[in-house]
């Protein structure tokens, strides 16, 4: 048996507005300023719904029906918190829970043997009462043999609805479901209505093959639903348990050995905690709380996930080596971020090494020393600006992606470029032919022997916030070296030096 929980007016409930509030509220999906012209109603309070304001209406339509309507933006963060609270409650009834949609959860209860249909009815009532006691509002609970039927039961429940496993009763329920509640595409719905099909039951009586030929995949799903729906796997939500300790020190500390002494027992306890779950430590997070009320945070990845105290201690020591703080330490927070055992071990680099354990230790220490994302294989995005690269961490095993910028690619020809990060501001002097003749760099005027370009580059033009354009020139200086400058036509930067 599966149970579906559905919270009606979920976005409105997430804002914690009172049920009995006289205020008529409608929620908008986007920012209020933009919404005035384009946005539609995302959700309304029960009173506004009764007054005829429906989700999907434009603001003007809604205000025509209810001039006193109060407009609010939906709060996605608050919705996530409410969903998490629902999930915590669902966990009391089953460890196998799917977060199907905002305000909708699906519980796998097949391992529960609660007897006949009446017992399931009682259990569903218990769930609803528990929810009312904890959350302060009521939910709809649907139960059925398959996930899809349970969701449908919750959709049409007036409190609680347990669908019988008897075929006749099930068909009777399904046949009465209006198609407009199942089909979102207005054109498809209109076509079905023109054929005289208004309810799900009418589809069940049609010849399957011809129906699927006409309606395609969506039609097949509808047909299967009309026949009682099929089984599907749930996308289970796994509750993350944090392996975390916060320690307040009895005395202020000033040196690394003192800190390591205090860290050791905490680390040991956390490692044991992770080991109990058959997991490995994949990363370490450390926060130091200072006497001047400041704090400093580090997060180090382990190249090879481990439970070895010695390896983790060495990683922390390498990361804190040479670190100076403005004030003495008053406390710290230590967290181990666990990974599954089979998750990260087959790595491209570790496979090549004769001593992978030693290499993993070295890579972890190097990342602690140089910073996250600064040790590994180079990758870049095809749409990114030239020179914008990232380092693929040793934890991942996919092949690297390297961008190809037309006109600038010298993978097998020409000279490699040495990028200046950050690039250096220069000024170009232009000749009569519209080509650069000299470059002013660090107050030195460098005459050019030759130039090539401009190479016009652009990327992400479909995204206003990230779009970029760049004009590049390859320059040969009289001093005998080659370089690349880039700019927007007015301001210029030395991007790199060839060779």
């Amino acid at each position, binding site marked *: 048996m599966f149970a579906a929980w559905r919270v009606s007016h979920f976005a409105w409930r997430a804002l914690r507005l009172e049920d009995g509030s006289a205020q008529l509220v409608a929620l908008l999906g986007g920012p209020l300023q933009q919404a005035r012209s384009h946005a539609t109603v995302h959700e309304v309070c029960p009173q506004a719904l009764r007054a005829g304001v429906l989700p999907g209406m434009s603001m003007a339509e809604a205000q025509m029906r209810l001039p006193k309507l109060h407009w609010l933006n939906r709060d996605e963060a608050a919705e996530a918190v409410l969903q998490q609270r629902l999930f915590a409650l669902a966990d009391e009834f089953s460890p196998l829970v799917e977060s199907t949609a905002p305000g909708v959860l699906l519980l796998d209860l097949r391992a529960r043997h609660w007897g006949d249909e009446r017992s399931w009815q009682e259990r569903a009532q218990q769930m609803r009462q528990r929810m009312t006691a904890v959350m302060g509002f009521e939910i709809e609970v649907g139960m059925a043999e398959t996930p899809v039927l349970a969701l449908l039961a919750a959709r049409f429940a007036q409190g609680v609805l347990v669908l019988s496993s008897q075929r006749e009763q099930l068909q009777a329920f399904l046949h009465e479901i209006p198609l407009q509640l199942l089909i979102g595409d207005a054109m498809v719905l209109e076509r079905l209505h023109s054929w005289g099909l208004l309810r799900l039951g009418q589809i069940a009586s049609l010849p399957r093959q011809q129906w699927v030929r006409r309606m395609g995949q969506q039609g097949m799903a509808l047909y299967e639903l009309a026949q009682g729906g099929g089984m599907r796997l749930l996308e289970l939500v796994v509750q993350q348990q944090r392996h975390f300790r916060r320690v307040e020190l009895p005395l202020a500390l000033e040196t690394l050995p003192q800190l390591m002494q205090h860290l050791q027992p905490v680390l040991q306890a956390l490692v044991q905690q992770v080991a109990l779950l058959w997991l490995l430590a994949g990363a370490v997070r450390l926060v130091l709380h200072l006497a001047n009320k400041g704090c400093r945070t580090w997060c180090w990845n382990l190249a090879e996930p481990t439970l070895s105290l010695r390896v983790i201690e060495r990683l922390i020591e390498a990361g804190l080596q040479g670190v100076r703080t403005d004030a003495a330490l008053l406390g710290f927070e230590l967290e181990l971020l666990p990974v599954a055992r089979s998750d990260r071990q087959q790595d491209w680099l570790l496979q090549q090494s004769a001593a992978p354990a030693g290499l993993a230790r070295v890579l972890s220490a190097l990342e602690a020393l140089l910073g996250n994302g600064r040790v590994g294989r*180079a990758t870049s995005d095809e749409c990114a600006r030239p020179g914008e690269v990232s380092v693929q961490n040793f934890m991942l095993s996919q092949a690297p992606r390297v961008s190809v910028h037309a006109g600038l690619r010298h*993978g097998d020809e020409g*000279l490699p470029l040495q990028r200046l990060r950050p690039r250096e501001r220069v000024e170009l002097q232009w000749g009569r032919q519209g080509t650069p003749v000299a470059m002013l760099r660090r107050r030195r005027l460098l005459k050019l022997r030759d130039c090539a370009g401009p190479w016009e580059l652009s990327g992400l033009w479909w995204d206003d916030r990230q779009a970029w354009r760049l004009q590049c020139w390859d320059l040969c200086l009289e001093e005998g070296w080659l370089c690349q400058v880039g700019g927007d036509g007015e301001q210029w930067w030395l991007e790199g030096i060839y060779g």
Partner: protein
Amino acid sequence: MKVLEQLRSELSERFPQATQVQWRRESGDKVFWAWPKGGLRELVAAPGFGASLLLQRWLKLGQGIKALLDAADGFDPDSCDAELLPELLWLRCNAAAQAMRAADVLMREGCVPVLAMDFRLCEPRELRAIPSSSWHRLRLLASRSGVSVLVCSPFAWLPCVESRWQLGDAALALSELQQGRAGMLEQKLMPALRVA
């Protein structure tokens, strides 16, 4: 030709040191591409004279895991040799001192047999601030762990190298950006490579 050989032999008798250098110049390419285990070598070249190409070829021909310690974060993957890139461990540093510490960590275990350190874009005063004892320590670590190290620097600077190579002015032109790398190495860069 006989006259030339006679002159050479006479010169070698009178100036043995000079002729030794000459011999090394002639067979320079072979010596440069060799990997003495646990050796520390320096390639001196200012930015813009083609040392990146030599460095990448040197790394490509190495056996095992190859690491590039990029002291000034100047490596450009887009223009790197396509065969080298997937097997290159790139270590991005912000300063020369940080690169020295990273090299120390890397060489202590000896699990990366081929290491190139690129200091060419670093400021000279930053390089001079590194104590020479650090280099002696690195050389000792390299010889113990058997790591082949090539240090690329903008001026002759390392106090304790086994061999130092100087890449002279190869007189590069823009047309060379369209040429094949193998040809450029043979025709332009290797002739400009000298034992310092």
